[in-house]
């Protein structure tokens, strides 16, 4: 797997409190990695460490395979939008971009205006950042993060507080940056539904610890409808299911999950009986993404 970012037991401690506790994530190049967690779970802390804004208490991280001192050489390839966008309120959108561009030695106004166009702010003219809506500020924050032409974009809760239209616009921007520009995105949110529409990889973080790290397919397979079958002989059951033409199967512990032809439970039971295989349990099961998250993090009381 081609990882652009990996963290190894990254930890941040404030006194006795572990804001991030031995977090190891693996971000695949060219994808969108969604970091899911409730407020205070440690998402921002983790992102700040990766973004060079905070010193890890222990652990390390690699960007494009470079770690330790050499990681710092890769930092110019990282774009950051952590918490609220850092903008000068009395400056216009282009002036804010220019300020960062000057610091990086970039003197290409055409490129900066292009960034504004990409995030849909090309017509803001002389309007000052303090007069922008929250959605506009967030989009300008993304444009700011793009000034250094990053390969990895770190976005902390960019859809927080946006109205439905703002969320949809943000989604389009993220898809454009990932699909058309090949930028890998690490995005955090506590809005599971929205994250599920953009992310290709997921890390579920709770109380500073990474509980699960899964691909979109793995996560959705856990959350989609399936036939769950328990018998007294798993290997022979699999042979029967194969002979019946079932291919979307997954064996976990003592159960087989079947993700197709969910209405053929009766036929499966009969076929198993013919082979003298005892069916202990067969039922259609499903789990919403939210339920799955609650199950992992210890229930709704924790949310």
């Amino acid at each position, binding site marked *: 797997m081609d990882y652009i970012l990996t963290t190894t037991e990254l930890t941040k401690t404030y006194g006795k409190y572990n804001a991030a506790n031995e977090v190891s994530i693996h971000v695949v190049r060219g994808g969108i990695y969604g970091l899911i967690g409730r407020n205070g779970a440690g998402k921002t802390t983790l992102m700040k460490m990766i*973004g*060079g804004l905070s010193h890890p208490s222990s652990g390390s991280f690699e960007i494009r395979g470079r770690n330790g001192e050499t990681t710092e050489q890769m930092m110019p390839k990282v774009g950051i939008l952590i918490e609220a966008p850092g903008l000068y309120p009395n400056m216009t959108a282009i002036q804010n971009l220019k300020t960062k561009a000057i610091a990086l030695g970039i003197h290409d106004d055409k490129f900066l205006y292009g960034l504004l166009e990409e995030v849909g702010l090309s017509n803001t003219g002389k309007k000052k950042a303090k007069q922008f809506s929250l959605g506009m500020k967030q989009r300008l924050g993304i444009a700011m993060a793009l000034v250094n032409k990053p390969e990895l974009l770190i976005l902390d809760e960019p859809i927080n507080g946006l109205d439905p239209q703002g969320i949809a616009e943000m989604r389009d921007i993220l898809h454009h940056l990932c699909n058309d520009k090949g930028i890998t995105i690490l995005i955090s949110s506590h809005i599971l539904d929205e994250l599920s529409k953009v992310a290709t990889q997921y890390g579920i973080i709770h109380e500073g610890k990474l509980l699960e790290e899964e691909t979109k397919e793995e996560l959705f397979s856990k959350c989609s409808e399936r036939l769950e079958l328990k018998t007294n002989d798993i290997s022979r059951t699999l042979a029967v299911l194969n002979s019946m033409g079932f291919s979307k199967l997954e064996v976990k512990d003592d159960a087989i999950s079947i993700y197709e032809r969910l209405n053929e439970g009766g036929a499966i039971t009969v076929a198993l009986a013919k082979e003298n295989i005892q069916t202990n349990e067969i039922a259609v099961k499903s789990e919403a993404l939210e339920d799955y998250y609650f199950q992992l993090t210890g229930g709704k009381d924790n949310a």
Partner: protein
Amino acid sequence: MLNLIKMNLYRMTHAVSTWVLAIVAVLYGLMQFGIMKIIMDDPFNIMEGMSEAMGLSEATAASVFTSIIRSSDFLIIAAIFIVLFSNAEQKCGFDKNIIGITKNKWKHTLARWISAVIGMTGLVVLAGGVALGASALFLNAFTAGSATMFLKSLGLSYVGLLAFSAVFFFFTTLFRSAAGGIVPSLIISLGILYLIENLMDLLVKKLISNPAVLPTDFFLDSQVMNFDFSSGTKACVILCVLCAGYIVAALGGSMLLQQKRDVK
């Protein structure tokens, strides 16, 4: 580094506070000229003895310019400028955009201070220039005076101002807020610290008869504000060394804080 300084100067020219303080500096220069005119010309003979008391026995280029730079009023203007400018980046969170992606975070601090000093120098030129220009044009008693004295007094006052700027900058970096920076800076500018230093001197004199050194010998405000420009080379060198010490300590501390601390 040069790019960071350019960035800071760009944002400085786009900050409202810069222009407001520039206007204040011009008005202060005019006000100082007005006071000098009243004292020096004294058309109604009511200011007799005042000029000597205020150290304005003569109206030369050196005395006019240094009366501006060394005044506690101008120090307050400089303190407000330094604190507002050096805190602005953190206040709006702009520092998050650039600090993470650069290797040596201390460079940001150094670049910010250098830029602040450039801005402060602009305020000195504005206030001093206005007072000097108005004095040359409208003050009857004005004379150009000695060029050497002008350069000496101007240079030493400026070195003192640099040291003050580094101290104000350090407090702002340390407390990460305008309020945290401005309070200790005003305590110094308004002369409150000077009073405490003198009390310390009295205490030392009570404890030790004929002490070789006094606390005020090591305090920046006591040494800069009370320095006699007609002093010899040795005194000038001591003042410069003291100022350089303050600059190195304050800037070093600020850079270390930036390098070691997390960005909020």
